[in-house]
């Protein structure tokens, strides 16, 4: 199940869940349902009794692991080395526990020193990651009036102004941190859970991405989303003339491409009350229109609570491996 619970289902029940998942997603996002061939393929994957599954030889993809270097065992750089050596991931990410660009700004020199050491010790590309986390700029954590409190009071203009002001601050902070990490040797920058605070949050990431692309043509810039849908907390913000509120993955991708991003990471949140089969059909339906037209790599978020992987501390290997296989074989994604 979406919460990680192990359940027994008949083949017919799994089939019904796949069909319902794609139907609901198609209706919500106004996109096509999965084809019968795709549903049959998913049924084969999800009806298997195997505790682990994998892609065919030669169909492997790039793993851009956000959240490596997590101080599981040694220090953060040692953890990156563990991921490089023992897990065999393709990219690693240095990050700090307060995973927010605003928070990193106050610790940037120490973060840069860790990046410098990591670059000396690893061969893998090392990117630096944090969340845009626009909400951090609102009171009481930040200086800007809290738009979540202003909106229920009917102070719409004030709430919008607050978000625009916070957005400007966030762009500056992302640029400040990125400049520092790049000076320390970073191969890339990751903006994780972009859009978590809505359209202003997404706008900040896109604006920062464009600025960084102009300065560093070679830089890896990954924009990983928070959700399948950009919430219109402001409602009227635009990037290149496109309103950001209400965007689904296909148009999210288009914005990331326009901003100069290297990698687009769609995220589809799990419904914990439904089966993983239901969830994977829903997720693939949302993302398929983006994968079909992408001109940059698409690295789907396939982690705890997103992309068909259950929301639990230790996701079962069968659920994790089924989800990865499904995305790769149905959507031909470039990584995750």
């Amino acid at each position, binding site marked *: 199940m979406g919460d990680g619970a192990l359940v027994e289902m008949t083949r017919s029940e799994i089939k019904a869940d796949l069909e319902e998942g794609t139907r609901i997603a198609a209706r919500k996002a106004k996109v096509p349902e999965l084809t019968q061939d795709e549903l049959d393929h998913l049924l084969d994957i999800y009806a298997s009794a195997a505790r682990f599954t*994998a892609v065919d030889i030669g169909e*492997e993809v*790039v793993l851009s692991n956000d959240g490596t270097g997590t101080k599981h065992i040694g220090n953060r750089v040692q953890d990156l080395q563990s991921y*490089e*050596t023992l897990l065999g*991931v393709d990219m690693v990410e240095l990050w700090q526990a307060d995973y927010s660009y605003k928070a990193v700004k106050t610790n940037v020199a120490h973060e840069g020193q860790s990046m410098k050491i990591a670059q000396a010790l690893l*061969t893998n590309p090392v990117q630096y990651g944090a969340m845009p986390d626009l909400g951090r700029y609102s009171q009481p954590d930040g200086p800007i009036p809290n738009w979540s409190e202003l909106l229920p009071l009917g102070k719409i203009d004030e709430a919008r102004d607050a978000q625009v002001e916070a957005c400007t601050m966030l762009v500056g902070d992302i640029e400040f941190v990125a400049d520092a990490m790049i000076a320390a040797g970073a191969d890339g920058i990751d903006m994780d859970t972009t859009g978590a605070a809505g359209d202003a949050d997404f706008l900040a990431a896109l604006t920062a991405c464009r600025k960084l692309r102009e300065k560093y043509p*070679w830089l890896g810039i990954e924009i990983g989303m928070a959700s399948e849908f950009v919430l219109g907390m402001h409602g009227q913000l635009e990037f290149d003339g496109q309103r950001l509120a209400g965007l689904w993955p296909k148009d999210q991708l288009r914005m990331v491409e326009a901003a100069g991003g290297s990698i687009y990471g769609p995220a589809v949140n799990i419904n914990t009350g439904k089966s993983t089969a239901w969830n994977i059909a829903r997720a693939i339906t949302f993302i398929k229109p983006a994968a079909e037209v992408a001109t940059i790599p698409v690295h789907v978020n396939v982690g705890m609570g997103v992309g068909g992987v259950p929301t639990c501390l230790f996701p079962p290997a069968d659920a994790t491996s089924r989800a990865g296989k499904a995305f790769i074989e149905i959507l031909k994604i470039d990584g995750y």
Partner: protein
Amino acid sequence: MEGAHSQASGMGGMRTAGDLVARVQMSKRLRLKEAKEYVAGKLGCGVRDLSDPVAMELIRREHGLGLLTMTSSTYPAEPGMMEAKFNIAEKLGLHINCVELFKERAGIRA
């Protein structure tokens, strides 16, 4: 979870050519098929070789692209880490930030 992903569908990082394909995706913004073809072309091997650890060990050693060190296999006399990245940048025609900064700060001139 990362272990499951790595075994189910990951290219294999430095065991194979995963890190190299990743760099091309990041820096040149190429999709997977094109990125694999780019790397295979630069290395003079087939695309299928890129996820074959046996083939890639030989190729990485030949071009000095870095090898993973394990309990019974260490390579102190082979290019590794920063040294390997110098070779990766040259072999793949990539701008690798730490390599360029190293050259600049160590006063290495072409």
